[in-house]
């Protein structure tokens, strides 16, 4: 089975992705991650205004069979949370790079992006 790894994203080896647009970073989990988890049933995320730090756990995602920590690919202040996930956590399975996004953060240090994997490197990791 092959998994989608869009070229415009950066990835953490723990399967989170980040997409940066005008200083705002949107964060989610990869196609591979959602497939490994199976049916996502619950997501626990920080609220707007909270700080997350690169490499630290910022929440959990739960599928029917497992609980998995979420790790921050970058540091910053949470500016938006995907509220749709509260009633429709399955969006993480259906559209992990789109409607299944988790958080938007105000990026603290753009240079942290250099520490992340590009699509090719991440694709090799999950191959």
């Amino acid at each position, binding site marked *: *089975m092959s998994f989608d790894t869009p070229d415009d994203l950066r990835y953490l080896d723990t399967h989170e992705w980040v997409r940066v647009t005008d200083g705002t970073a949107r964060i989610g989990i990869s196609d591979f991650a959602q497939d490994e988890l*199976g*049916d996502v*049933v*619950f997501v*626990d995320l920080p609220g707007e205004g909270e700080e997350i730090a690169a490499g630290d756990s910022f929440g*959990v995602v*739960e*599928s*029917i*069979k497992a*609980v998995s920590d979420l790790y921050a690919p970058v540091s910053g202040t949470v500016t938006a949370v995907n509220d749709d996930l*509260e009633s429709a956590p399955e969006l993480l*399975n259906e559209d992990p790079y789109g409607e299944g996004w988790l958080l938007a953060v105000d990026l603290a240090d753009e240079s942290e992006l250099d520490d992340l994997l590009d699509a090719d490197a991440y694709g090799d990791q999950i191959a």
Partner: protein
Amino acid sequence: MALRQSPLAETHATRGAKTTDFGGWEMPVEFDSIRDEHEAVRSAAGRFDVSHMGQLLVSGPDAAELTDRLVSNDVRGLARGKACYAAITDDEGVMLDDTVVYHLPEAWLEGTHLVIPNAGHDAEMADRWREYRDEWELDATVENRTDDVAMIALQGPDSLGLLASETDADPEELDFFEATVAEVAGVESLVANTGYTGEPGVEILCSRTEAETVWESLDCQPCGLGARDTLRLEMGFLLSGQDFDPAEHPRTPFETDIGFAVDLDSEFVGRDALASATDPVERLQGVRLTERGVPREGYPVTTPGGDSLGTITSGTMSPTLGEGIGLAYLPADTEPGTAVAVEIRGEGKEAVTSATPFLDR
């Protein structure tokens, strides 16, 4: 140690199953999605490879007596073709395993009684049967046929209709916990009206070498252990090694709330201890979260004020109910509907105790 393999392992791999180690067996946990598989069984039909279940064939003049004296229910009273659910207990009445015992309808694989222990318990129980046979000087042979026999569960409201086109038996005629020898897709099988989902259905046992013919003939959703777990939890059915375990959770059948499977008029190992243990201090009960969250094994259950009551032994997000459900040992006098809390990552989530099954069945 290498994991034991189902006769259908290659078939499952080709179908893209994800597998897991379950009781020393490598078994499918998920074929497509636990939710889809679960819903197929509740609304139509699903097939499960449960070849990890043990199969002990007991035969000889004292087969019934030997088995009767090792399980909590009445085996000697079973008519041919009938089965019962029972606990296997030690001298203290602690559950070692739970099982279904069949008085076989006619000689099937040369046995008169079939005992089905859980995954990984087959060798231990075969030894137990033989040791007690010798101690009690009974005339019976005990064969562990687990590696020769495949077991397939077909479950769901459409399952009997689906099976009818593949067999010479009339599955609608089978009573609950009744079995018959019949051909399924031309393969001689034991077809039993039993299951672990709360839906109508059968469990089919056949030779390992013919498992694929039977499996392929049952044209419905393949289901893994993930859906098997969510389905059984919605019914409040026990999982050996998880909800009770002689080492981790030593519990009596009254504590696990299967007193209906204990016949104190039957003489069995553990009977005397159980006769004075019918009113346990704690009893396994349902817990339902009333706010978002998923109870999981090991999570504390407390009063709404935070005082300890017990611990979740099994939990999941119920696909049918869309809410978190679990089982926990709680004070036996707790009424269903009592407000409690389940501590999830340090935070008490609102919950209520619940009668089982969680579903209206």
